[in-house]
């Protein structure tokens, strides 16, 4: 058990190093330099060169990379050239918004996906099953950003139920109203994300339930006289739940990738929107920090999932 986890963590280190080199080189290749934004009539060409020299921008790239990594470990991600704020503070403000949304989406995904998967498996081959299959097929086929645009058009602008921009409305004061306003802004993007993100859970759970329905242990329990409902609750559901829980780690990747679209459509001030703005302003300290952070979160997500899976399924452990 511990061997598996240790091996998995050790694999993570080279991946992280390669990722950081890649991100660094990409940032280096971006047009413009960190001082392009601060050019003004009072600042001459020589002064810019001087600034570049004292900041080590003329060093060979491996030297610059090393400096960057050292700063990284001190929690110093640089200063944003657009917002004139430390990047770490920016990410703290925006990250909270993204996490709120991601957390809500994940809860709703499981709240919709789990019952649907079990329901479809229970009624295998019947009308209910077909309906759930149609639902998963439709949600899988349509590109996510189109869903968001149509969703905000219908529920945001057309029916005028939900707010269409921002994360908290300016009128909300105090803890209660702020929380309510925040939830109001999250519900529509979160629900759309959840409704269109259940495919894997539903499909997996459905086939799992169908498989276990015909397995020996269920037949044994059934012949003992345990009612079918109780078998679903106590035996089948429990057996299928852990692998499903393990998917949570992987779904972080999907949620983060989707956050760029969600935040763009809903003008939701999270990390995705921060990234898009940073790209437009060539604010490359923010860009590198965000790409690295997303990569790191992906890594943590897969690590988490792999560990949970190896606990659940002893076959994939290292002997």
């Amino acid at each position, binding site marked *: 058990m511990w061997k598996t986890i240790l091996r998995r963590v050790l*694999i993570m280190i080279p*991946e992280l190093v*390669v*990722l950081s080199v*890649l991100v660094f080189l*990409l*940032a280096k*290749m*971006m*047009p413009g330099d960190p001082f392009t934004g601060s050019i003004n009539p009072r600042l001459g060409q020589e002064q810019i060169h001087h600034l570049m020299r004292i900041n080590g921008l003329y060093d060979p790239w491996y030297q610059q990379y090393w400096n960057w990594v050292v700063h990284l470990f001190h929690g110093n991600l640089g200063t944003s050239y657009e917002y004139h704020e430390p990047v770490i503070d920016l990410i703290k403000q925006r990250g909270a918004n993204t996490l709120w949304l991601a957390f809500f989406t994940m809860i709703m995904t499981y709240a919709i996906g789990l019952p649907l998967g079990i329901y479809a498996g229970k009624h295998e081959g019947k009308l209910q099953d077909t309906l759930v299959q149609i639902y998963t*097929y*439709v949600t*899988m*086929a*349509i*590109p*996510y*950003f*189109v869903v968001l*645009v*149509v969703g*905000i*058009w219908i529920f945001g*602008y057309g029916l005028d139920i939900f707010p*269409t921009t921002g994360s908290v409305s300016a009128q909300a004061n105090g803890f209660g109203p702020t929380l309510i306003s925040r939830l109001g802004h999250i519900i529509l993007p979160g629900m759309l994300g959840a409704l269109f993100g259940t495919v894997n859970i539903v499909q997996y759970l459905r086939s799992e339930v169908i498989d276990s329905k015909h397995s020996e242990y269920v037949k044994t329990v059934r012949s003992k006289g345990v009612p079918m409902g109780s078998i679903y609750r106590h035996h089948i559901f429990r057996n299928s739940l852990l692998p499903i829980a393990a998917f949570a780690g992987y779904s972080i*990747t999907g949620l*983060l*990738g989707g956050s*760029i*679209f969600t935040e*763009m*459509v809903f003008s939701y001030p999270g990390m995705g929107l921060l*990234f*898009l703005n940073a*790209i437009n302003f*060539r604010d490359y300290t923010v*860009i590198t920090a*965000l*790409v690295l952070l*997303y*990569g790191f979160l*992906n*890594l943590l997500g*897969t690590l988490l999932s792999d560990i949970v899976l190896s606990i659940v399924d002893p076959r994939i452990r290292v002997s």
Partner: protein
Amino acid sequence: MENKIDKKSTISAADLKRLSAEAEQEAAPSGFTIMAREFIADKPALIALIIILAFFIFVTVASFFIDVPKMMETNILAYYNEPFTKDFFLGADSAGRSIAKQLIVGSRDSIGIALGLTVISSTFGICWGMVSGYFGGTADLVMQRVYDFMMIIPMLMTIIVIVTIIPNYNAITLTLILSCFYWMGTSRLIRSRTLAETQKDYVQASKAFGTSNLKIIFREIMPNISSLIIVDTTLSFAENMGVETGLSYLGFGLPMGTPSLGTLIANANDPENITHYWWTWLPAALEIIILCLSISYVGQVLRRTLNASQRRGKQEK
């Protein structure tokens, strides 16, 4: 066949013909026959297939008649022209450009990129998966580490960064860039199937005969997993429709001034457009929805043909 038969054999030529005809009938139908039957049995699938093909042909042919630079010229007189008027079947956008024409040219480009992306990334993914699954051992281990690494890269962000770095790019370079990031799903699937296939007797026998590895992989294993490849390619085509359009929607897809389904939907970013001038973006959104649903339905039907117990097409007896 016939002249190889032993002279002393008692079977007459007529009998032999009859027997081989019977044997052919008894043999399992080929993959394509099964697929054709499946489409005839499932009417919605046939309709979906016809929609896709008719649409592709229409878009390709119609775009020959459209002068793209002229179409993208600003025409202030047609500012937000209503749909269903003369010259503007689907109305015009804020620069007075015809939405219908942009839709046709944009669809052609978007579909072309999705097709190219599917062909390149699937070919690469198939080769990667088959080599990795067939050789196993160290090669597999190294290739799997590369796969793991590709999976943790924040794909969308990296693509956007690359697109901003490259000063000049066109549809072809964009397709190549995207292809670098969308081969992993295919390779994983193909690898696991190849692993299973490599254990089978026919591969072992072929190896014992001294057949070259390349020949075993591409002439012997590949035909056996060909139906899986077809299904996976179709399903990834449906997914890839969303890749370029999504990027163009964010403003990092095709260069400015080139219409794409994504840039048309991006019209919806303007609150004015999304509420009042629905014709600037809704047709493109509906088109993507219908196309993606059709393609992935065809994919689902193809997938059903892989599993004999789920087929709906009747076996002729």
